[in-house]
């Protein structure tokens, strides 16, 4: 232990003596780690957001497709589905995307029967400041705080949105926060009647049917029975959706990772170049150490410590910077690529979620080759006799 501490102390001093080399390598290492860690953090955080979001979704969602396009479902189908064994509740849902050309962005409009549905939503949403729209009273809405901020609206302000050849007014009566940040990013909750006007969904129709089951294992049987009775519908299983989201973010994160691979390779080439070019001063120092009785193993251990400090320091800075970039600054430059489908999402603040195993893997991916690469030139110099090192022989 004393030996390791003494060599560690020497390694720290050695890194400080070669400030230029140390800083350039640490900066390059920090940059590469920052890029990879940002993708990792953001992907993991999004996966966490969606997992939380999925927990509040129905076990099954029935959608109708016409010529491959989503169409509306009949509300009346909810009655016989609710009678099926294993089904605990069925809700016709009115929701949709509302595009506003002036903002070049989509809102997600969700129609809510605040008396009937709030108990279910209330577990995930907190309203304040303000209040919920009064049941049955039109032209009132609550918005996610990210959206209200984006639109610059305060309580009592109203927006007027075009619907066909007319306009629909919505007054902001409350702002809601959610434990799922994505839910509050672009969502407007309005009375179901207002949502029908905005989305042009007639009475008796709905966007889809949400089905809750007594146990998710019933899903396959219930889905098959519905499909038999309603040919042409698509039934989305929550578990299937979970896997789809995972796959989507894995694919996007993986693609970003692939795009960053050249940066990693460039860094390793730089590190190799800087480390293999053991300068005259460094060679002389190794010669001095050997002359005063250091063994090859001592020299390699000191170099291992020095580069481990550099790798951990550089990677640590990169990881902290990535954490700040993703969880404090909202991942500018990255959110657009990984989310990609709404101009509102860059304002999203995701909940910090860090996977320790992935971090260790990242450190191994970036740090380990760097430390290993640094040992080769040190070993080449350390195995030579001190006399030739001191006399400057190459």
């Amino acid at each position, binding site marked *: 232990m004393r030996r390791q501490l*003494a060599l560690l102390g020497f390694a720290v001093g050695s890194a400080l003596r070669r400030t230029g080399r140390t800083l350039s390598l640490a900066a390059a290492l920090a940059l590469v780690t920052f890029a990879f860690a940002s993708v990792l953090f953001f992907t993991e955080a999004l996966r966490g957001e969606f997992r939380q979001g999925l927990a509040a979704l129905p076990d099954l969602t029935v959608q109708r497709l016409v010529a491959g396009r989503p169409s509306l479902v009949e509300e009346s189908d909810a009655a016989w589905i609710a009678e099926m064994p294993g089904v605990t509740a069925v809700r016709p849902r009115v929701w949709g995307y509302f595009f506003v050309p002036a903002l070049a962005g989509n809102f997600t409009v969700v129609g809510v029967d605040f008396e009937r549905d709030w108990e279910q939503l209330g577990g995930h949403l907190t309203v304040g400041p303000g209040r919920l729209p009064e049941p049955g009273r039109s032209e009132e809405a609550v918005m996610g705080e990210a959206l209200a901020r984006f639109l610059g609206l305060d309580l009592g302000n109203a927006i007027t949105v075009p619907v066909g050849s007319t306009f629909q007014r919505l007054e902001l009566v409350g702002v809601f926060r959610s434990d799922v940040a994505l839910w509050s990013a672009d969502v407007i909750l309005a009375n179901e009647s207002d949502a029908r006007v905005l989305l042009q969904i007639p009475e008796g129709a709905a966007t889809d049917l949400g089905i809750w089951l007594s146990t998710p294992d019933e899903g396959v049987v219930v889905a098959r029975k519905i499909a038999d009775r309603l040919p042409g519908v698509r039934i989305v299983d929550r578990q299937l959706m979970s896997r789809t989201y995972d796959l989507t973010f894995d694919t996007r994160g993986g693609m970003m990772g692939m795009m960053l691979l050249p940066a990693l390779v460039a860094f390793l080439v730089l590190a190799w170049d800087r480390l293999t070019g053991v300068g005259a001063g460094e060679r002389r120092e190794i*010669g001095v*150490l050997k002359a*005063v009785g250091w063994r090859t*193993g001592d020299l390699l251990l000191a170099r291992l410590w020095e580069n481990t400090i550099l790798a951990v320091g550089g990677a640590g800075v990169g990881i902290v910077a990535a954490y700040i970039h993703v969880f404090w600054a909202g991942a500018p430059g990255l959110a657009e690529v990984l989310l990609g489908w709404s101009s509102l999402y860059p304002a999203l603040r995701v909940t910090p979620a860090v996977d320790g195993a992935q971090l260790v893997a990242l450190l191994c991916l970036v740090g380990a080759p760097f430390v290993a690469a640094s040992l080769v030139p040190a070993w080449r110099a350390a195995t030579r*006799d001190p006399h030739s090192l001191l006399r400057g022989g190459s």
Partner: protein
Amino acid sequence: MKPSEPAVHALGLSKRYGAGHTAKTALQEVTVAIPAGEFWAITGPSGSGKTTLLGLLGGMIAPTQGEVRLAGQTITHLRDHHRALIRRNLVGMVFQEFALVSGMSLAENIFLPWVPEGGAGQNDRRRVAGLLDRFGMTPFAGTQVERLSAGERQRGAIIRALAADPPILLLDEPTASLDTANVGLLMTLLLQLRDEGKTLVATTHDLRLANDPRVNRVRRLVDGVLET
């Protein structure tokens, strides 16, 4: 070591650099036996092989042929690990350009040999403090070596070579960068060490050292061959 055993013994020592037609012989069949407690000077022109001989005697280079014994112990065929221990404990080497690590203080340089052992012990620290005092270097212990004068660096390098209290001290051109006053001071210190029982071998082409009558013996090396 038996009392009759030389402290430094080279037997048929040769060193050749390179191979084939570019090979260069630096030292040829050198045999020399230096008794313990003596101060020898090896003289000769530049390129005669003096530094190579010193490197071989100090276990810094492996010979092409021949054998080196220090205090009765053969070091020629030792592995790197054991030769490092010889360099740390049995022989202290002072290089012509001092071989101090820039960016470190004099004290840090002096304590370098103990770093792989986990740092110097109390006795070692006491001995180093004594050496610093004796060589008048205590005020400079915390000074970065590049801020020291040539004479101060020379003394610092000798302190480091003596720090582990080795019985043998090898010095490569110890007076090369010193003025006459410093040469006198250095000679006094080296002779004191000799009188305390240390064996000293110095390579030099400085007549101020080579002609000093207090040096026990002067041998001349020309073109890698030790003149009789």
